[in-house]
């Protein structure tokens, strides 16, 4: 039974957000007997509610509150009010994610050491290593049911994957397979196997893909130690004279302001909302925003080097059939500066339906050059680039001076400029992706511009020293002992891998730390 907690109960842990980080942390703490109130800005949707229609689902799930953009990234021009394609719902963006679950590589935890002081980049080593995280990666893989781990077979390859695999092998790439996916290839954990339905981005109607919405959240609620308050939008974290946080002010489902007292507050609203909340919580004592003595809150915003390559062929592919992200090529994921950039990238298949292809293939384009591509939609294959981008101090989330959200709160502005390393990596990936498709007979290729960000990282980064970042190795803010960051905004650097598995591993690890510190009464 979900446990209702009193607003004045100052013994609870308040978690803001219920996605990969917050949802996992909420369940892990509840399983340990910790009382948790989770504030979720969105409503609760379950597989029976998901809609397999791209625009209708977008209206149902996407975070569409007012946001603004700036910088030289094309998203600021084509989708000026939509810097990120992420979800407002119980379960957060785990409803939308494609399921790719990759561990970071060892060298990626030491970006500054291994890449050197890249001009214009704000690189830093993580305060943890792969070895530190490996036990938690193992637990995360078991929790998510990741294919090709724990004896779980890989998913079968769909048509889009078969084209991709043939192209990769033609170029003598060897690390090519149907991925490590948090999508059941067989029934597991009371969830069905994948039925190759497509629409992974719109919420899995079979529940075959792991999402906190129907795994961690109900498991936590079943302990009687977790209350999820839906449609509850956090607006401010308060603190006392000693500099400890005391609770969270939020706007509830009726639009009324509430204040939930807390022993500990964990912020997991993603890399745009989490720093925004810290900045909005400025006070006389913390005039620059909470936990911001380093001035790093909101900075170092990363979104991965992305982009897509689509190609048309003389015969049908029908890429939309089956899992959206159906396979991966990892031969370019290593660090090899001889390619003209530091860090590496993955190539992963991707498919969009016709409506989203029209919106994202070349935003703003028109005329026959564009429409002839869509005419060949049935013969199209697609892949997505996921590479490590450089943290830059000037890529940041700030509070808008003018734009307000529906509550009258300052909207977040997302500023992003590509680093030259990002551009070099993207161009390399475009060339390799095009070569893969041309090797299997592509008649036309499309190096497609990045979409609004789905991987939002780094804006409350981990650092060994308080002056370099916002949180320590456990996601605990350097400045305030009972304030934690529990999402991808902790990432010191972005690595080449899809971030969810690492967010989950960090949340499991953080839950152990918080529970331990609580039992020691040190926080």
């Amino acid at each position: 039974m979900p446990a209702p907690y009193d607003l004045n109960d100052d013994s609870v842990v308040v978690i803001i957000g219920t996605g990969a980080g917050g949802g996992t942390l909420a369940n892990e703490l509840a399983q340990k007997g910790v009382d948790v109130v989770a504030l979720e800005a969105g409503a609760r949707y379950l597989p029976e509610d998901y809609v397999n229609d791209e625009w209708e689902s977008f209206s149902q799930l996407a975070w569409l509150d007012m946001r603004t953009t700036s910088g030289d990234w094309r998203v600021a021009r084509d989708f000026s009010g939509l810097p990120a394609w992420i979800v407002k719902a119980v379960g957060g963006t785990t409803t939308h994610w494609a399921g790719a679950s990759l561990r970071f590589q060892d060298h990626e935890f030491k970006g500054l050491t291994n890449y050197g002081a890249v001009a214009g980049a704000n690189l830093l080593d993580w305060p943890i290593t792969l070895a530190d995280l490996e036990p938690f990666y193992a637990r995360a893989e078991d929790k998510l049911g990741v294919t090709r781990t724990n004896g779980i077979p890989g998913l079968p390859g769909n048509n889009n994957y078969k084209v991709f695999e043939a192209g990769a092998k033609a170029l003598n790439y060897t690390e090519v397979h149907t991925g490590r996916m948090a999508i059941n290839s067989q029934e597991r954990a009371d969830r069905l196997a994948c039925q190759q339905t497509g629409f992974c981005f719109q919420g899995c109607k079979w529940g075959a893909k792991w999402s906190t919405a129907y795994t961690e959240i109900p498991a936590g609620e079943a302990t009687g130690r977790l209350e999820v308050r839906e449609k509850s939008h956090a607006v401010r974290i308060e603190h006392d004279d000693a500099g400890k946080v005391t609770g969270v002010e939020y706007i509830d489902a009726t639009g009324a302001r509430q204040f939930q007292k807390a022993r500990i507050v964990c912020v997991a609203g993603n890399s745009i909302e989490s720093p925004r909340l810290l900045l909005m919580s400025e006070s006389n004592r913390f005039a620059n925003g909470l936990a911001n003595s380093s001035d790093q809150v909101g900075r170092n915003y990363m979104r991965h080097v992305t982009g897509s390559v689509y190609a048309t062929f003389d015969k049908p592919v029908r890429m939309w059939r089956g899992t959206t992200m159906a396979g991966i090529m990892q031969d370019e994921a290593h660090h090899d500066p001889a390619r003209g950039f530091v860090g590496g990238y993955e190539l992963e298949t991707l498919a969009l339906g016709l409506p989203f292809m029209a919106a994202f293939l070349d935003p703003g384009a028109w005329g026959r050059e564009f429409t002839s591509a869509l005419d060949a939609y049935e013969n199209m294959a697609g892949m997505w680039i996921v590479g490590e981008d450089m943290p830059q101090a000037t890529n940041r989330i700030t509070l808008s001076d003018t734009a307000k959200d529906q509550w009258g709160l300052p909207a977040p502005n997302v500023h992003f400029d590509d680093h030259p390393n990002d551009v070099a990596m993207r161009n390399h990936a475009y060339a390799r992706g095009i070569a893969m498709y041309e090797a299997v007979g592509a008649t036309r290729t499309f190096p497609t511009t990045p979409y609004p960000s789905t991987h939002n990282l780094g804006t409350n980064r981990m650092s060994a020293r308080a002056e370099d970042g916002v949180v320590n190795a456990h996601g605990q803010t350097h400045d305030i002992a009972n304030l934690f960051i529990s999402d991808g905004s902790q990432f010191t650097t972005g690595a080449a891998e899809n971030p969810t598995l690492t967010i989950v591993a960090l949340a499991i690890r953080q839950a152990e730390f918080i529970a331990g510190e609580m039992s020691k009464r040190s926080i």
Partner: protein
Amino acid sequence: MYLTGDVRGLSRRDLLARSVAAGAALVVGTGFVFSPRGAWAVEVTALKPQTMATLIQLARDIYPHDKVADEFYAVAVKGHDDKAAGDPVHLALIEDGIADLDTRAGAGGYLGRGWEAERVAILRDIAGTPFFQAVRGGLVVGLYNQKAIWPIFGYQGESFSQGGYIERGFDDIAWL
């Protein structure tokens, strides 16, 4: 509904108009734009019917798909008429924009230019205008989100109701 899929849905006025329809171009009636064969009609309430007819051609010139019939373009731009009915600024944006196209096209107006390339040359000159961007932007969803056109592109839409593709060809590619 502002569109009818077949003649049974047409009003008497539609049928009368149908009787005069001939030739390839759209037929502009009083308050309606009709297809030449009377298969469909779009009611126009705020915009001039001639404006709607030009708007339909403009939509096709922006996103030309030769296998997609005019009625789908009509559906895609009908929202401008709906919006113009309650929004004088939008009404002026569309009417003035179409009038500008006709002026730029010279004698015979925009619809009088027989070759797509001639019309597109005019559009390139106005591609940065709020008018053009309003029409183009609206089409991205208004045209491509019509389920009825998806089969023309081979796109199958949702498959959950049929159990997904696991038994229906998710891996049936045979030409590799």
